[in-house]
């Protein structure tokens, strides 16, 4: 992790659902302008952990946390959640465009944050759609419903919607698991482009995908109390060629029992 600027980090971060400990004292530094992948078997807490970065877990009744999650060195718990989510965008597993036009989908966030001017909105919408590599496919009819697009296009629309509020970080929760291989590939290539401007954290249960797209990989696993732990974190090349922890090796080589 030398020569990298840390964008987000956690310190001794634990999360509880009521009394049940779901995440156990996680320390990690997410480097700026890199793609960091979280891998691990189902139920290891990787999605829950990802959702800690934009405080989406706040929405679940009974969730409490200890330790801190930091964005640019500041504790996100002390930040206004609206401002935090403007800086830390999110793309979900299932493409979830609103049942509105393509334009209104992308303009939703900026409007929320106070941008009213139509021509400025139009510029921003085009820029976002271009960055999400979907402009060429939709530019002729921005009034078409976002729901009428194909799954892969919908997901890229959602990425455009997320980058329209000009975040620093984009969280992606298994963004390609509902897509076919071609659409998946497009999303992966897009991520490679996006990391020039954004810091990306992605949760994936697809190790191959983590290998293909990410610069850093974090492997998570549940302990005997079913709490999610960070087992190993390092450059993806290192994790995939010479993992230090034997459990990491078992998982990435498909010998996981």
């Amino acid at each position, binding site marked *: 992790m030398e020569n990298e600027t840390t964008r987000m980090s956690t310190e001794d971060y634990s999360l509880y659902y009521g009394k049940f400990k779901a995440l156990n004292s996680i320390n990690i530094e997410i480097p700026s302008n890199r793609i960091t992948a979280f891998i691990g078997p189902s139920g290891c807490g990787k999605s829950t952990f990802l959702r800690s970065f934009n405080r989406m877990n706040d929405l679940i009744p009974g969730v409490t946390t200890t330790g801190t999650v930091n964005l640019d060195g500041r504790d996100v718990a002390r930040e206004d959640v609206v401002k935090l989510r403007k800086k830390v965008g999110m793309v979900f597993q299932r493409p979830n465009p609103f049942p509105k036009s393509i334009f209104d989908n992308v303009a939703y966030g900026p409007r929320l944050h106070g941008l009213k001017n139509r021509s400025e909105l139009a510029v921003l919408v085009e820029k976002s759609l271009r960055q999400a590599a979907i402009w060429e496919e939709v530019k002729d009819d921005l009034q078409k419903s976002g729901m009428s697009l194909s799954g892969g296009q919908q997901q890229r629309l959602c990425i455009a919607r997320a980058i329209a509020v000009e975040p620093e970080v984009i969280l992606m929760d298994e963004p390609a698991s509902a897509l076919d*291989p*071609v659409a998946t*590939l497009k999303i*992966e*290539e897009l991520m*490679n482009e996006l990391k020039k401007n954004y810091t990306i954290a992605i949760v994936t249960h697809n190790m*191959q995908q983590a*290998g*293909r*797209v990410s610069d850093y990989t974090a492997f998570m696993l549940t302990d005997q109390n079913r709490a999610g732990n960070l087992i190993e974190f390092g450059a*993806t*090349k290192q994790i*995939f*060629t010479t993992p230090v922890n034997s459990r990491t090796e078992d998982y990435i080589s498909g010998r996981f029992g």
Partner: protein
Amino acid sequence: MSRDSFDRELHAVKGNLFHVTEEVRKNLSASVKYLENRDMQGASMIIESDEIINLKCLEIEEQCLNIIATQQPVATDLRLLFSILQISTEIERIGDYAKGIARISQKIGPGKLIKPLLSIPRMEEIANEMLDDAIRAFTEDDEKAAREIPARDLQIDILYNQVHRELLTFIMEKPSNIEQTMMLDWVAHNIERVGDRVVNICERVIFTVTGISVDLN
């Protein structure tokens, strides 16, 4: 389907392989030239630069390993990476032969050679050209060229036999020449081995393109 980042990585390794081959070729021709010119300093430069070549070959190996681990290449991509790994080993060995020649040159010492070199530079020229053509065939997936290049190895073998016999007569004429004569024979042998290595590279090219392993020796 396009996998731009993957293709970029592949391209980068190929580029590195091409680059290191260029350096090995330079060293090879220089080693013979310095031997002819009795350039001791040049010889030690070659020995030093071979270290860098070895490091570069290791780097190529690591790059291949990373790509295989993270990108799960299959079919042509997998054969290509496999071939790059093997070719880099061949190149590294050819580099060692050049270094060997430089070492021999140092052992002979700064004095005048017992005879002017004629066949050995010719051998080196052919081997060097073969190597250049072989690596070009690799980058261009030129199976036809890869099948034609090994025929030239025969010329090298013929020249080697010539050198060998010639040196034997030198020993018979003047037994005190024996040490230098044997060393020159060793130089010729090194170059002869280069030819064999290039033939191996050609086999790899054919494997990359067709998926069939062949024996061209």
